[in-house]
């Protein structure tokens, strides 16, 4: 099993290479080969996960058999621990879902789409499982390049071109930051293996170079994760990418940035930065909170449904960053649970929107009002259930993650973040519920005097992704959407999930055990996993979130125009402030890189102050 493990990454590349050089024979045959490859990948990663769960230490394989000697690693390692393997499994599942959605969704000239998605999937698996810093960078770039190309896949419209450009420019600058960080670490330690660098840094104080390297790596990964103010590219790219690609982008790609921050911190920087954890926590919780609230606010006024879901992604990334930014075992477990449940829900919601585009050819919520009723009834139920799930109702969806996150925050005396992520959850879920209520239930007809009504951006005809409007919705899309949303909802009910996540996080955050396993193949005594009791607070908060989200959505959609009940003196400045924020998303990659530079400088200064 271990010997075959690198195939998780290699096999998709091989099939993709065959696709890339083969002539377009038959679309259906290409689809079948791609789906077969992707589902084999799911089964294989699941088998690896079961294998890993049964062991005490991470399974480590050395590509090409270059084993370390006396704690010095020259080869390239892959490390399968429960958390990284679970994330690779989520990525594999979503790649499979993307192929299923694409199957009857749009006409594809040739197998290039399949090749790109397979390369993307293999690179994501490699990114999750890599134990080597430079390989982390290579897989980061590989998945980025595949993602840029997928974003521009329908390059007939100007939207995809512009989205892919801002995406590529921002993320390339982010990648340069990562490489700077790698270069600094290599200059200091002469190593590229995560465990070996961690061993070297462990007993030395954090000087400027180490802090600088951490700052560079974190900035690069935060660009990928779309943390405010590095997030501007995301909404432009996700709004125009073909829906099957969006399923992967929103479901797992953004989360990989958050995962990478946790990975590099816990394998390399926990030693030198541990004494400054209190200050570091404030910086990351601040960034996470800003991202969660910013994303949620941008959701509220957004009527382009794919853009709306893009901002939901940003908001939820902020909440996941709050989990990782606590820098505790419980925080990592919370982030993992959130990423799993919310990722599946977002992916499912994107599939439903894909079905709407397939049938009606529009993504403008106001233009779509009532039109969703033409779609099969199950899609309505799936979308509304998924939207409710975003609010994390008791025991469903991300409830387990929020429960652990509340415990983790209170444990380190940062209870205030609970209020932040509760507000972010309510607002973003309310915005999706509003869109669902309008499209599928026919509520909230736009009034004639509403200035924002119909001049909102929409797909231009070249971007409509499909030719003509077919009179049916492919059943495979309904099933995929249903399975993803149902899985996202019930995943919180799986018995032992919370304990499993805490156990996995305990292993993930134990630097010594990881280093011993990688460099010496040795077992350290297993860390004690913390346990989390179900508290009344979590249930109350969850009920309040769901009720508030439904109430806000209902108020917005009400024919009595509840909005006018808010005094003019409050409403007008609020609307002005909203539009000011919204205009910052200018669509210019130059502006986005300017924000990125300002954010990077500010983050560097904050880290320097925090570790003084």
């Amino acid at each position: 099993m271990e010997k075959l493990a690198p195939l998780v990454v290699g096999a998709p590349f091989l099939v993709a290479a065959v696709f890339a050089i083969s002539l377009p024979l038959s679309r259906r045959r290409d689809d079948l080969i791609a789906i077969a490859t992707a589902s084999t990948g799911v089964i294989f990663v699941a088998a690896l996960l079961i294998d890993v769960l049964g062991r005490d230490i991470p399974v480590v394989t050395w590509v090409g058999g270059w084993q370390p000697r006396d704690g010095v690693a020259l080869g390239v390692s892959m490390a399968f621990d429960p958390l990284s393997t679970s994330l690779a499994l989520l990525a594999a599942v979503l790649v499979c879902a993307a192929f299923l959605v694409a199957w009857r969704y749009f006409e594809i000239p040739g197998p290039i789409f399949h090749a790109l998605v397979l390369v993307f999937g293999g690179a994501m698996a490699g990114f999750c499982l890599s134990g080597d810093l430079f390989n982390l960078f290579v897989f980061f770039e590989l998945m980025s390049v595949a993602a840029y190309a997928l974003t521009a896949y329908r390059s007939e419209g100007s939207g995809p071109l512009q989205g892919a450009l801002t995406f590529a420019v921002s993320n390339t600058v982010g990648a340069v930051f990562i490489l700077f960080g790698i270069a600094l670490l290599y200059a200091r330690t002469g190593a590229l293996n995560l465990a070996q660098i961690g061993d070297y840094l462990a007993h030395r104080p954090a000087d400027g170079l180490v802090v600088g390297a951490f700052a560079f790596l974190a900035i690069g990964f935060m660009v990928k994760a779309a943390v405010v103010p590095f997030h501007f590219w995301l909404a432009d790219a996700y709004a125009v990418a073909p829906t099957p690609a969006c399923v992967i982008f929103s479901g797992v790609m953004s989360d990989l940035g958050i995962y990478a921050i946790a990975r590099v911190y816990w394998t390399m920087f926990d030693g030198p930065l541990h004494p400054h954890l209190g200050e570091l926590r404030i910086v990351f919780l601040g960034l996470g909170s800003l991202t969660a609230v910013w994303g949620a606010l941008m959701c509220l006024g957004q009527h382009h449904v794919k853009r709306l879901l893009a901002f939901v992604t940003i908001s939820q990334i902020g909440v996941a960053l709050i989990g990782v930014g606590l820098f505790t075992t419980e925080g990592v477990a919370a982030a993992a649970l959130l990423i799993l449940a919310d990722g599946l829900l977002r992916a499912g919601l994107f599939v439903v929107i894909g079905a709407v585009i397939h049938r009606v050819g529009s993504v403008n919520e106001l233009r779509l009002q009532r039109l969703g009723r033409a779609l099969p009834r199950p899609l309505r139920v799936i979308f509304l259930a998924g939207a409710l799930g975003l609010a994390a109702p008791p025991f469903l969806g991300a409830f387990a993650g929020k429960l652990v996150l509340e415990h983790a925050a209170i444990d380190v005396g940062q209870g205030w973040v609970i209020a932040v992520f509760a507000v972010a959850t309510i607002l973003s879920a309310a915005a999706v519920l509003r869109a669902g209520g309008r499209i599928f239930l026919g509520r909230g007809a736009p009034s004639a005097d509403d200035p924002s009504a119909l001049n909102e951006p929409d797909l231009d005809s070249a971007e409509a992704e499909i030719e003509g409007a077919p009179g049916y919705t492919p059943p495979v899309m309904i099933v995929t959407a249903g399975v993803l949303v149902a899985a996202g909802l019930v995943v919180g009910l799986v018995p032992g999930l919370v304990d499993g996540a805490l156990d996995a996080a305990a292993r993930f955050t134990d630097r010594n055990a990881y280093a011993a396993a990688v460099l010496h193949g040795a077992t350290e005594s297993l860390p004690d996993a913390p346990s989390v009791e179900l508290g009344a607070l979590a249930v109350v908060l969850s009920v309040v979130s769901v009720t508030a989200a439904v109430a806000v959505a209902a108020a917005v959609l009400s024919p009595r125009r509840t909005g006018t009940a808010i005094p003019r003196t409050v409403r007008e400045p609020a609307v002005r402030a909203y539009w000011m924020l919204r205009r910052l998303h200018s669509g210019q990659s130059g502006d986005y890189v300017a924000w990125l530079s300002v954010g990077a400088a500010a983050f560097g200064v904050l880290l320097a102050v925090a570790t003084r």
Partner: protein
Amino acid sequence: MSFAPYAVAIWIFLVGLYGVVTSRHLMHLVICLSVVQSSTYLLLLGIGYRTDGAASIFVDIPPNTKAVDPVVKALTLTDVVVGAAVTALLLALTVQAKKRFGTLDPDELDPLRD
């Protein structure tokens, strides 16, 4: 080993970044991005440099000769390849923009703004 390569790398990075931020032309944008990326080559090679070190090809020199670090060369080569892929893709997008919309001004590719 002097500080000069690092200073030049930082300079190239900042100049490229300034170009990306102020660019009003897609070709210019793509080239500035390449400039930003090339700062990493200099940084990596600067880190691996050893004064009076030989090239790290041990075919015709004894194995214990002092040589520059071969690892950073491998990293730089990989980085060059990655950079070429990104540049090629961005140039393809630029060609598409010119073909379909007859413009290289990023302002005119703007469907989602209000």
